[in-house]
């Protein structure tokens, strides 16, 4: 039992921290970082350090050039793991030259590519993590962009990049109204798979549990018997029309031949 407690404690740490990353979503323009309150309590014994890594972009087949910087706090846990929190992003606006090249991209429906180092502590790490999007997907009012950074410790696994919403196909050529970025960033770490449930008792006691199952809610009269009621209704309707026809026939027989024909046709 004594062994188990720290384990649960740790796993709670992991879970709570991973929850915290997912809530680290914020817009660039003036949005303040929300600090989850739960984390503070546990962060005390661990050391924090600041890291910075730069975002680079490329237009079509051009070379990569700096486009912005991410800064974050690197938290080292006592069990040896490292996680990134409090991610901030400052995006460099497009220069005039870049605007022109971007317009060319829009015309050609070409790719706008970005990349991040795969390790934030010792960039670029093993390799750069590259993502790209068709340039025509970005312009809305401004330039909408949405980063999802998949992390594993201090390593960046993958980068999902695109606009916030849908990108309609066929893509229309459209220039942005204003040349400023509207950036959203999410950090994601992996979810833990739930443990496979083990329930031997339930299976043994399955027979007893059978009786305790709630009876299904009583259905309405109509829901139960609609399949009988509808044919019944049809029969009744049929009978009614038959009856009226008969009556008409009797009356029509007295008035004249033309009406007899008509009623016969109707029948």
């Amino acid at each position, binding site marked *: 039992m004594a062994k188990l407690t720290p384990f649960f404690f740790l796993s709670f740490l992991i879970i709570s921290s991973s929850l915290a990353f997912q809530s680290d979503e914020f817009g660039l323009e003036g949005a303040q970082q929300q600090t989850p309150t739960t984390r503070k309590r546990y962060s005390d014994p661990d050391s924090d350090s600041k890291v910075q890594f730069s975002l680079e972009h490329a237009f079509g087949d051009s070379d990569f050039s700096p486009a912005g910087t991410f800064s974050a706090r690197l938290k080292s846990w006592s069990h040896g793991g490292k996680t990134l929190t409090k991610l901030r992003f400052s995006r460099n606006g497009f220069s005039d030259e870049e605007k022109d090249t971007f317009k060319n991209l829009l015309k050609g429906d070409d790719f706008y590519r970005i990349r991040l180092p795969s390790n934030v502590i010792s960039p670029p790490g*093993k390799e750069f993590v590259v993502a*790209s*999007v068709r340039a025509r997907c970005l312009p809305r009012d401004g330039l909408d962009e*949405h980063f999802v950074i998949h992390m594993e410790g201090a390593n960046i696994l*993958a980068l999902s990049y*695109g606009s916030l919403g849908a990108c309609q196909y*066929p893509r229309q050529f459209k220039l942005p109204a204003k040349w400023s970025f509207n950036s959203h960033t999410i950090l994601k770490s992996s979810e*833990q*798979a739930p443990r496979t449930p083990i329930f031997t008792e339930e299976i043994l006691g399955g027979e007893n549990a059978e009786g305790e199952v709630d009876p299904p809610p009583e259905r309405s009269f109509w829901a139960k018997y609609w399949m009988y009621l509808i044919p019944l209704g049809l029969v009744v309707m049929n009978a009614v029309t038959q009856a009226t026809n008969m009556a008409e026939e009797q009356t029509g027989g007295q008035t004249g031949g033309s009406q007899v024909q008509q009623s016969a046709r109707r029948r």
Partner: protein
Amino acid sequence: MAMAIKASLLLLVFLSSAIVSFSLYEDQVGLMDWHQRYIGKVKHAVFHTQKAGRKRVIVSTEENVVASLDLRHGEIFWRHVLGTNDAIDGVEIALGKCRNHLHYMWCSAISGYVITLSSQGSTLRAWNLPDGQMVWETSLHSAQISKSLLSVPINLKVDKDYPILAFGGGYLHAVSAIDGERVLQPPESSIIYVLGFLHSSEAVVYQIDSKTGEVVAEKSMVFPDGFSGAVSSVSSDKIVVLDSTRSILVTIGFLDGDISFQKTPVSDLVEDSGNAEILSPLLSNMVAVKVNRRTIFVRVGGEGKLEVVDSLSDETAMSVSLPVADDQVAFASAHHEGSKIQLMVKLVDDLETVLLRESIEMDQHRGRVDKVFINNYIKTDMSNGFRALIVMEDHSLLLLQQGAIVWSREEGLASVTDVTTAELPVEKDGVSVAKVEHTLVDWLKGHMLKLKGSLLLASPEDVAAIQEMRMKSSGRSKLTRDHNGFRKLFIALTRAGKLFALHTGDGRIVWSMLLNSPSKSEACERPSGISLYQWQVPHHHAMDENPSVLVVGRCGSDSSAPGVLSFVDVYTGKEISSSDIGHSVVRVMPLPFTDSTEQRLHLIADTEGHVHLYPKTSEALSIFQREFQNVYWYTVEGDDGIIRGHGMKSSCAGETADEYCFTTKELWTVVFPSESEKIISTLTRKPNEVVHTQAKVNTDQDLLYKYVSRNLLFVATVSPKGAGEIGSVTPEESALVVYLIDTITGRILHRLSHQGCQGPVHAVFSENWVVYHYFNLRAHKYEVTVVEIYDQSRAENKNVWKLVLGKHNLTAPISSYSRPEMFTKSQSYFFAQSVKTIAVTSTAKGITSKQLLIGTIGDQILALDKRFVDPRRTLNPSQAEKEEGIIPLTDSLPIIPQSYITHSLKVEGLRGIVTAPAKLESTTHVFAYGVDLFYTRLAPSKTYDSLADDFSYALLLITIVALVAAIYITWVISEKKELSEKWR
């Protein structure tokens, strides 16, 4: 007690049929399934033809099979498939136990043992010769990896027992044949000479006392040029080796423990010398050396002098020497001459004497002769007769005797590497392949028999007759297409580079074809097949064209070797064309476009990052250029842990003039940190899978949309420490992470880590779900997890009014660049068995529910309903959920013995399962391959769309006739009654 067992059995049967109503009756076995047993390419063969009794040959193969074959018919008496890591190094027959019977010793030759040495000389086993039961197994201590040798000396007799000498892992062992114990006390001492090489440049001779196993003397000598490894032992005190430059033959004599070298350059023997190669070892006083496609025979003289005795122009296979009568030693050689094989048996001492010269007509598609094993027998006129077992280039095994092929076995089918399906030709009017077998009387008779059977009136003879009738029934092995699509061809590519077309009806080989290199040039002597694709499947237009398959091969073993394409007509089995493509083959991507003759467009990526379009026609080019912007592909670099996505850039006109070559650009990368993750498995959906409905209705009348995308890649990674065998790490050290990655944008759609779990991962991907199997180290059990992906972006389309008014986005094109709104559901179950492979059934329209086909460690195939791996299973499903078919949650998946589709058979060495839809929606073809082949037809939800094969039409007819008669009779009666009423 018996009653209780019966009752519980009955209950079990009832329960199982209640859960999965899939199983087979005894008399249904073999009706639509077939099973073929193989052994693989033969490595060693030992004949056993002494005395009376059944003549047999013991073989060991490259598929790690040791088998005993009937020498008369080629049937398998017995066989054992050793594990994949248990390669057989040697096989010998040792005389078994010598029984002391009535004070008179006899060593039964019939009850001899087959001795095998395997796993680099670390395992020695004895099998009983008549029935193949294992008698004993000894594991030998080994220190390092080395070549291993097995020898059963006949002259070394030790106290009623013949010891076996086995060398492996740096140790020489003498083992008793009786019980596998190490021999310790031989009565008479003798010296065993052992020659070995150290560091490939030093020869060492040990003299070992066979009594104690002690090294009496040891002598070594350094040979400065180094050895190349191939050894041919010429006589008891001489061997011939090649030096490291492969241009000098070195004779090493080790008489009485003294080593002497004698060098003879190959160029002294033949004029045009090149790299030499020593063929078949163990030829007495003679070496066969292959130089420049010529085989020369070199006699080794008394003082190590070499002289050329004979030479053969073409490639020749040689047997080991065989003692024939009068102290003479013979050997066999076989080579090709035109379409015939020349088999010659000559005396070693006197090459002019040809004991046997036979030429045998041989199928072109068997290739060259690879190996020869000979055996002699005494004819009635007391002369020597020879039989030869030959292994051909396509791995087939043939027995030649008296100038004819006695039997042949297509052992190439034991190493199937890729399988695809093909349709049979349509039956033409007037040209009916099937003979008219049924007269009306026969038909009626057959149905009367069936009627008897269904009314339980049939006698045992009738039952047998019914069974026979069923087996032969309705031309199931006809060579034309049938209405239900039950008759098809499975095209299998084997490791030897041979294509086989197997008929689904009875499993026979319709045609076979050995892939030839297009130019037969030096550069590409024998291409190895990599993979198989459906090239042309005419079904809408171009109906007069025959369908064809594309075989992609490679001229060498490394991935940068140039590729070879070969197009093969499926109906005839003839090669339409083939070409050296001049670039390497990394990935072959069938595109979802076809040209006007229904040839499918394929992209082939090479090592330089270029892609090449096939077929090279302008029409294909124009089709491709239209979709140029929308073609993406990805590469997985397993060693580096990087997955890259690529898009098309431009034609590579700047570099080459080839207009069908295109450059690509990198669009995304996913980089797995090398210290924590290693890719162990990647998987995509089958490209030709059909999904019937995109939506799934929940119990609460809610609609879920499946996220059905063809561009999903399932990736499983494991901690580098945990990449080894199960149990080699602690649960804390190993984690398994699975990913679903969109291959257009590189987005990770789903990521789930399983702590304390380990590979190997076996997965199957279909529609919107993945099922994967792995090992849970904490629970010490195998687990199966299912992940289902649902699309949320279309979730608003539930409103009927939106559908009516057309305000839905169901028909809008879906772009991968939109942010995916999806969610996943997953659940894990324990699974009691270790798994070799998993597949899923596939049907023509995708309506029929699916079954997982799990190839278990016991080489059987288990069919498991997809309902069991539904993530929506709950502990207490509500009434509505039960009605929908949701099974109450259990922690482990059931293994129901009746749902083994292989019933009592085993598909030895199971490697893969292929499913293909039949035309009938309910039915799917299942083909499993390994060392054995197995085929069956499955109906996962029973055959709801057709009548059973044994449906009694006669009973139906009789019933109708009886009813009509009854109606008529009652009508007459009622008429009469009415009349009498009126008369009253």
